[in-house]
């Protein structure tokens, strides 16, 4: 609930400045998962190792995710900027592979959303490939509307859920 309130504030603030498209309603920093490894791990000060999902996520700083309009799967300039950063990273670490997850908001039928999510993941993947990332290093998967990140049933939540997320595979 608290998180939602923050998101709403962020969204309305953004709405004043952002272009007409969706407010990607800058997600509040992911509740830093309890990934601090137990005793044996590297000292906390070094941070995540390069080439890992944690490192990718922290370097991307939110740009591991791109957002779409209702029923759409086209890559706009915001998306393109994020994907350029992703491509840069993936080219910098040529041994890592990544998967692009496509997602939809809840306001559609389950099966169509699986197809639409795949379309979105594929659009992101194609853009990364056009920037030189070898297609063999990228896979796609659609979760349709099954894995929302924003929990509300409102425009702001839906805008955050219509997304493609690039995840570095370990």
């Amino acid at each position, binding site marked *: 609930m608290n998180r939602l309130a923050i998101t709403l504030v962020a969204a309305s603030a953004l709405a004043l400045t952002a272009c007409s498209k969706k407010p990607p309603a800058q997600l509040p920093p992911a509740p830093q998962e309890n990934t601090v490894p137990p005793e044996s791990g590297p000292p906390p000060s070094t941070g995540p190792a390069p080439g890992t999902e944690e490192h990718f996520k922290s370097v991307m700083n939110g740009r591991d995710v791109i957002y779409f309009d209702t029923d759409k799967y086209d890559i706009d300039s915001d998306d393109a900027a994020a994907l350029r950063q992703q491509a840069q990273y993936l080219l910098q670490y040529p041994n890592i592979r990544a998967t692009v997850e496509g997602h939809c908001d809840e306001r559609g*039928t389950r099966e169509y959303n*699986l197809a639409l999510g795949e379309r979105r993941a594929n659009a992101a993947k194609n853009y990364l490939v056009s920037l030189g990332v070898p297609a063999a290093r990228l896979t796609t998967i659609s979760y349709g509307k099954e894995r*929302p990140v924003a929990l509300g049933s409102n425009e702001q939540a839906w805008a955050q859920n219509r997304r493609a997320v690039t995840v570095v595979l370990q």
Partner: protein
Amino acid sequence: MTFRLAAMLTFLLAAAPLAAQQQPPPPSPVPAEDQGLSVTVTDENAWQDLQVAIPAFATDREQATPANSQGTTALGLELARVIYNDLKNNALFKPTGPDALPKPGYSEITAPNFGTWRGRSAEDLVQGYVRAGADGRLTVGCYLYDVALGQELTRGGWVVQPAEWRRAAHKCADLVYSRLSGESPFFDSKIAYIAETGPKDHRVKRLAIMDSDGANHRFITNGQATALTPRYSPDYSKIAYVSFLNGYSRIYVYDIGSGTQKLITQSTNTTFAPRWSPDGRTILYSMATGGNTDIYAVPATGGQPRRLTDSPGIDVGGSFSPDGRKIVFESDRSGNQQIYVMNADGSNQRRISFFGGRAATPEWSPRGDLIAFTHIVGDLRIAVMTPSGGGLRYLTNDWQDEAPTWSPNGRIVQFFRTAKGSGQASIWQVDLTGKNLRRLPTPVGASDPAWGPVLP
């Protein structure tokens, strides 16, 4: 199996009804047999107020049975309760159950005391008995009487294993329903669905099955991998469903007898929306390749898939006409989701939905006369239309109702409803009048119902 049951039934009905022969022949031959009562549910007034009394089933002698820890007398009461709930929950008649009625003795089953029942304003009377055989199997007899005429309308009998005692009750409810409404039976059937637990962003989705009345509930998968959109094979031996096992969205066919499952295609592409042909020989599936989803058909036993659609849009789902010759499916080739019909080989694809909004998840009625689907204009609602796209009619009006599935007799539609905000999912059903809407009892949240055919 069926044949053997039928043979035994004939034997038992000839031998058992002690008093049947003593009953005087009906005054007029075949009175009012098929008049008046055989109407469709769109004209429900004629029989939905029918008072049907369902007293406890009698037993010839109290015996122990694995079907009920208290013996066959208690089982007789349970049998009548199941029949009562079948008829009551589907708003078909106005039944009165065994808990509010006197208990007829065994000898009364075939010779009802009509005076008593007339005094209770019952128009129809369902009586029956249960006997435990030496081999443990149960014999259940079911008799339907017209109280005013003082005459038997129909009878049935079944020999079942103790574990399947509820099926005998459903068979009796089906017999009563069919005889009084003129419609085909549907109670003795099962439903596969997705059981949902946990918060909206970490929801666990498990494959589960239950009888048409929610009894005999069982989880099939353990929830480690998300399961979606199950479909029973027409003979109930298998369930095709989507699983995200191993990080791919793919279709498995789960064999209920052996508890094993196998992939219908080895492809790692997003593969979903499994559908059986009415003869169980073919499975349709949808597969996304490079942003384009098409519908394929593959033999249920494995083999070479055949691609049925090739439009650059999303073609998804598919539901066979009862004769197996046509397929109704969903496509966004026109720019948004609409409903199309094609021949089973993929030829002659044409759009049938032209009433505005988006139209999705079409399901052909087992009777062939209607197509149920999800109509999307802001909210998602369950609607029906004719196979040519006419006669649009809404059955529900809520925030998000989707994915209809037909009762085996094509008279009731189940679907799942998602609550705004919480995203809680639940299974509901509504009859074709749109008036008799009810939520199905499930142990946890529930979505993607798939109703199978009537058991033989």
